C-alpha cells in the first residue's frame, strides 16, 4: 500500500517488523523480498512519486568544500530514488576489488567476490534482465563482435550490461518496475513525503525503539519496528547516522569517528583524444554500446588488468571511447542535405555534396540503415552511428579510500530544522598515476593495432595540473559507512549491522569499503538481497 504522510492523521503510530528508510534501489529491493510474507514492512520515503523541488529535493542542498559535489543534482529524492536518473549500466565488482591490497591503505572487504556471486545472479533478475548472465565470451558472440588482439596482460575488455529499456523508460526504474508491487502488497506500507526526523533508542543506545518521520506540512508519524534499515544513498546514510549520534549523545556507529569518512566516487574524465586518418567504422563496431540479438545493450570498453594493478600498485580503472562525429563524412553531409530539404531549402553546393556522399556511400548506407532500423530520424546523432575519425578516451577511476575525504554536518539547517551536509571530496595522486598509466597503455595499444594515435590530456602529463581540472563526479557516492569486521575500522559489520547497535542496518553504496571501477548500482542490489536474506533469519 502506498500512502502520503501529508494526508495522514497527525501523530499516528505504525508498527512494523522492519522499517526501511528510503525507497531507492536498496530499499525497494529489500521490500520486494518480503512482499507477500508474514513480515510487516514499512517503507518511509522523503519524496513523492515524482520529482518535486520545494517539497523534497531542496532538502538535499548542502555545502561542497572540496572537489565539486553537486549535492542537489547527484541524488534524487522521490520513489525510486536515484535510479530515476540511472542509465542502467550494470557490472559486478572484480575479485581484486574485494581484496586487501597492501599498496592501497584501508582496502579490503570482509567478504569476497565469491560470497556475492549468487546475489549478483539474483540482482540481474531484480534489475529486469530476462536472461541469465552470459560469460563475456558468450556476450561478445551474442553481439557478433570480434575484438582486436589487445595485450591482456595490460588491458582487458570490460563489458557493462544495460538493463532493458524502452523509448518511454530509457533504463530500468525501480519505481516503475516495483511501484505496482508495493501498491498491491498487503504487508508493505509505503509512506511518501515522510522525512527522517529522529530516532528514539534504548537507554544504552544499542537498540532503536522508534523512528519519527515528518512531512513538510508538519504531519508527523512514529514507526515502531523490530529492525531498521537506512537505505538513503551514499551521502544521506552518513548524514542520518551523524544526526542521530549528535541527537543521542553518541553511538550510531560513530564511536570511532568513522561515519562520513572515506567518501569516494568514481572520478570520471577525458584521458586523451584518439585520432585516425581513416573513419573508425571498425572500432565503432567493437568499442561502443552495441545491441545483441536479445535486444539488450552492452557497452564494451577496457579495464586495467588485475595483474598489472598488482604489479604496478595501481587502482582499478576502465575506459570507453566516445566518438566525435566527422563533419566531412558522407553521412554527416547526407544529414546536412536532409535538414535543408526538411526545412524547405535547397542545399547549397548540392552537386559537390552529392559527389562527396557518393565517395562515402558504404558508410552513408550503413548509417541510414541503422537509423531506420532503430526508428530514428536521419537527424539522429548516435554515438555508434556517426562515422568518426576521432574519439575521446573517457576514464572511470577507482578512488583510493581516504579518511580525510568526508561527509560532515554543516552548521546551517534545512527546512525541517536538521543540519545539512558538508562534502569534502578529496582526490589524490594515485588516481592520477593510475589514469596516466591506463592512458599510456591504451594509447600504445591503439597505435600498435592501427586504431589511431593518442594525444594524452595535460592533467596526465604534469602533476602541476590539478586533477580536479579534468575529473568530475559521477554521482556514485561510496564508502561513508564502510563495512569492516573491526569496529575500529568500519561503521557496519559484514551483515550490514551498525557496530554497537542491535537492530540498525545500512544498505547502499555507503557500505562499500572500496569502490572498484564498476558502476555501483548492481552491487547495491546484490548487497541489498544479501541483507534481506540476513533480515529473514
Amino acid at each position, binding site marked *: 500500500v502506498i500512502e502520503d504522510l501529508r494526508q495522514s492523521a497527525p501523530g499516528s503510530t505504525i508498527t512494523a517488523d522492519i522499517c526501511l528508510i528510503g525507497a531507492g534501489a536498496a530499499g525497494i529491493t529489500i521490500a520486494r523480498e518480503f512482499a507477500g510474507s508474514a513480515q510487516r514492512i514499512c517503507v518511509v520515503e522523503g519524496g513523492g512519486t515524482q520529482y518535486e523541488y520545494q517539497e523534497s529535493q531542496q532538502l538535499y*542542498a548542502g555545502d561542497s568544500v572540496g572537489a565539486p559535489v553537486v549535492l542537489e543534482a*547527484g541524488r534524487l529524492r522521490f520513489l525510486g530514488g536515484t535510479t530515476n536518473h540511472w542509465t542502467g549500466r550494470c557490472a559486478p565488482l572484480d575479485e581484486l576489488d574485494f581484496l586487501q591490497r597492501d599498496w592501497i591503505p584501508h582496502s579490503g572487504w570482509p567478504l569476497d567476490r565469491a560470497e556475492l556471486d549468487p546475489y549478483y545472479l539474483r540482482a540481474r533478475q531484480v534489475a529486469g534482465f530476462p536472461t541469465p548472465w552470459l560469460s563475456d565470451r558468450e556476450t561478445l558472440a551474442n553481439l557478433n563482435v570480434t575484438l582486436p588482439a589487445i595485450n591482456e596482460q595490460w588491458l582487458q575488455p570490460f563489458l557493462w550490461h544495460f538493463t532493458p529499456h524502452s523509448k518511454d523508460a530509457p533504463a530500468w526504474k525501480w519505481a516503475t518496475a516495483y511501484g505496482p508491487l508495493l501498491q498491491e502488497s498487503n504487508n508493505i506500507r509505503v509512506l511518501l513525503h515522510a522525512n527522517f526526523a529522529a530516532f528514539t533508542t534504548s537507554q544504552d543506545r544499542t537498540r532503536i525503539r522508534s523512528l519519527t518521520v515528518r512531512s513538510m506540512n508538519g504531519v508527523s508519524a512514529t514507526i515502531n519496528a523490530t529492525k531498521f534499515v537506512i537505505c538513503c544513498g551514499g551521502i544521506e546514510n552518513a548524514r542520518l547516522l551523524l544526526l542521530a549520534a549528535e541527537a543521542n549523545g553518541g553511538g550510531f556507529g560513530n564511536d570511532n569517528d568513522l561515519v562520513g569518512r572515506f567518501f569516494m566516487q568514481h572520478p570520471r574524465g*577525458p584521458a586523451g583524444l584518439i585520432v585516425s586518418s581513416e573513419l573508425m567504422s571498425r572500432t565503432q563496431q567493437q568499442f561502443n554500446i552495441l545491441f545483441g540479438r536479445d535486444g539488450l545493450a552492452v557497452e564494451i570498453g577496457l579495464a586495467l588488468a588485475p595483474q598489472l594493478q598488482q604489479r604496478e600498485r595501481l587502482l582499478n580503472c576502465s575506459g570507453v571511447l566516445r566518438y566525435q562525429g566527422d563533419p566531412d563524412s558522407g553521412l554527416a553531409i547526407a544529414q546536412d542535405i536532409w535538414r535543408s530539404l526538411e526545412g524547405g531549402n535547397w542545399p547549397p553546393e548540392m552537386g559537390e555534396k552529392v559527389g562527396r556522399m557518393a565517395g562515402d556511400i558504404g558508410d552513408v548506407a550503413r548509417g541510414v540503415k541503422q537509423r531506420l532500423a532503430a526508428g530514428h530520424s536521419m537527424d539522429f546523432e548516435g554515438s555508434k552511428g556517426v562515422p568518426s575519425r*576521432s574519439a575521446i578516451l573517457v576514464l572511470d577511476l577507482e578512488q583510493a579510500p581516504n579518511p580525510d575525504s568526508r561527509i560532515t554536518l554543516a552548521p546551517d539547517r534545512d527546512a525541517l530544522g536538521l543540519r545539512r551536509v558538508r562534502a569534502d571530496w578529496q582526490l589524490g595522486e594515485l588516481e592520477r598515476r593510475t589514469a596516466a598509466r591506463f592512458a599510456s597503455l591504451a594509447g*600504445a595499444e591503439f597505435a600498435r593495432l592501427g586504431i589511431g594515435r593518442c594525444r594524452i590530456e595535460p592533467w596526465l602529463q604534469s602533476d602541476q595540473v590539478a586533477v580536479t581540472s579534468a575529473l568530475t563526479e559521477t554521482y556514485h557516492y561510496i564508502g561513508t559507512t564502510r563495512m569492516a569486521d573491526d569496529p575500529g575500522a568500519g561503521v557496519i559489520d559484514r551483515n550490514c549491522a551498525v557496530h554497537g547497535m542491535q537492530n540498525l542496518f545500512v544498505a547502499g553504496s555507503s557500505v562499500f569499503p572500496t569502490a572498484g571501477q564498476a558502476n555501483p548500482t548492481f552491487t547495491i542490489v546484490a548487497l541489498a538481497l544479501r541483507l534481506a536474506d540476513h533480515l529473514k533469519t
Partner: protein
Amino acid sequence: MAPPAVSELPPQCDPVVTAPSVDRRACVRLLVGLLGAVSLARSSVVREHLLPAADLENWLRRYGPGRLGDSVVLGRLGASYLASHPEEREPGRLARLILRDSAAPVESGMIESIRQDWSRHDVTLVEGWVLSRTEARICAAMHLVGGRPV
C-alpha cells in the same frame, strides 16, 4: 539559506565529459605527420630500399618525407624529444638506438624496433602524443637532418 535556482525537472544522470583541450584541427595537421610512422609500424609488405644501417641519415633525407610524413611536423616532435633527451643528440648514437645494431636494411630495422617497443611498452610522450621510443627517435633524427629531401 535561499533555495538555489534548480530546474523542476530531475537532473540528468551521466555528467557530461567535456571535450579534451586538444584543438581538433591542430590534431589533424599533426596527424598528417604521424601517419607515416603509423603506416610504417603496421606495414606488412615493405618496399625495402636496401641501404645499410649506417646510412640512416641518407635514408631519412631521401625517403623520410615520402615514407614517414610531414618532415616539418616530425622534426618539431623530434626537437621536443631531444630537448628532454639531450644525450641522444649525436646522430651516430641515435642511429644505433633506432636500428639497434640490426644488420637488416634501414626500413626493416626501424619497423622491427617499433614492434619491439610496442611489445615492451617502451613508449614516450612527445607533446602529449604516445609514441614508441623508436618513433620518437626517428622524429629526432629527422630534426637533426633538417627534414629536407635531397
